[in-house]
């Protein structure tokens, strides 16, 4: 149980961080950049919000099957393959939420600071402090989606005991075996992880505010 829960958390944290380092710069670019392509990326994020995890799982599995285009890297049924799928699932969510938080919080502050001729370094710090809670909320939501997802985890990980079994796929298997008590205990741990993550995010937001 500990191993399964730890792998769930590890894979989803890696996927969420990887998604954040793609999605947050993209969100900053969408809000502050000048290229016309910004609208296209934002629309793609919007569309990606509804992307079914099974579709992503299938695409990633197809790519990494031994008979697929990247079969030679031998990554299918590994935590890395699961993290890649989860990253793709989570990028649009973090990106969209980060754009929303930037648009609602940061416009007037940036202009005010510029008008007051606040030094660049201080301006960066003040703006970062302003937008950080929004980003934290976006990242938490991303983690929630990653850790709770089952379709892509099953397809890209294969639910292999001791290697790629995570809380959601273990739950499915326990139900399949008729071990309902075991299934409920996995779900309880999953809810516990979400509660801890929400608590961490709240604490961070409060400290910044």
């Amino acid at each position, binding site marked *: 149980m500990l191993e399964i829960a730890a792998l769930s958390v*590890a*894979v989803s944290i*890696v996927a969420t*961080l*990887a998604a*954040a*380092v*793609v999605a*947050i*710069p993209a969100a*900053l*670019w969408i809000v*502050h*950049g000048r290229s016309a392509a910004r609208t296209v990326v934002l629309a793609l994020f919007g569309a990606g919000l509804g992307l079914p995890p099974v579709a992503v799982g299938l695409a990633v599995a197809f790519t990494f*099957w*031994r*008979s697929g285009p990247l*079969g*030679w890297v*031998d*990554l299918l*049924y*590994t*935590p*890395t393959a699961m*993290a*890649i799928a989860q*990253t793709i699932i989570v990028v649009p969510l973090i990106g969209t939420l980060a754009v929303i938080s930037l648009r609602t919080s940061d416009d007037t502050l*940036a202009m005010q600071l*510029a008008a007051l001729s606040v030094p*660049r370094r201080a301006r*960066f710090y003040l*703006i*970062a402090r302003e937008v950080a809670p929004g980003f934290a909320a976006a990242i938490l939501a991303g983690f929630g989606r990653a850790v709770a997802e089952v379709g892509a985890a099953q397809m890209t990980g*294969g*639910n*292999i*005991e001791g*290697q790629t079994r995570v809380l959601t796929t273990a739950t499915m*298997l326990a*139900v*399949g*075996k*008729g071990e*309902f008590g075991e299934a409920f205990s996995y779900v309880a741990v999953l809810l516990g992880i979400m509660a801890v993550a929400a608590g961490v995010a709240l604490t961070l937001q409060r400290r910044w505010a």
Partner: protein
Amino acid sequence: MRSYLRPLTLVAALGLGLLAPLEPAAAEPSVILATTTSTQDTGLLDVLVPAFEKASGLQVKTIAVGTGAALAMGDRGDADVLLVHAPAAEEAYMAKGRGLERALVMHNAFIVVGPSNDPAHVRGSATAQAAFGAIARAQALFVSRGDDSGTNIKELALWKAAGADAAGPWYVKTGSGMADTLHVASQKGAYTLTDDGTFLSQRATLSLVPLVEDAKDLRNVYHVIVVKPVANRVSNQAGGEAFARFVTSADGQRIIAAYGHEKFGRPLFVPDAGKAE
């Protein structure tokens, strides 16, 4: 305003490297075993696979799918070794030249289960074929796997043998594994065909009873097949061969013979390696 974009781009580049440490580079690809949901749901693989890993030092990735899907994985070279139970489909697979060797491993039995009030009066039928004919005539609710698994292939063959047309509102397909399908049948008060191992392992949570057992048309035979690798693709033929040797060895057969005593009071599978087909 754009000044803070640059450090973030740097962080982005660094962050992509985060994925790397999750995966230690393996010297040799692990052995991919494609098998059926019934071997996983009974729990047999939970003892058989670790014993093989310990004996061989190899790492196995077990993917539990239906027999049809397992054979398709072998066909594409997406697995190294198969443990499956649909003899006719397996023979077609071997005839295509996609298998290096095929050996008998074990059998258990299929059984016809259903609600205890038995609306189609199949209890005590001499053959499954007769029972299926009675179910079709009564249009009694029947739940099918509908997933091209070994059990599903067997079921379709039984309808054909009974001369019955398995279609209509009384015939429900789940598209799920054996245990899930049993639970659906239990909830709906329907008949279904199951391997006795999965049924025994689930029985405590089901309101179904065995109605036809020990019929000669209900034998469920498992073979192991070593997949012929596809040129220029990752594979582990030696690992697949080692697994096939292990499950048919004295040690492997002993594990199969013993499995189930502790939990269910009787073995779930009968070892058959080396016996005539």
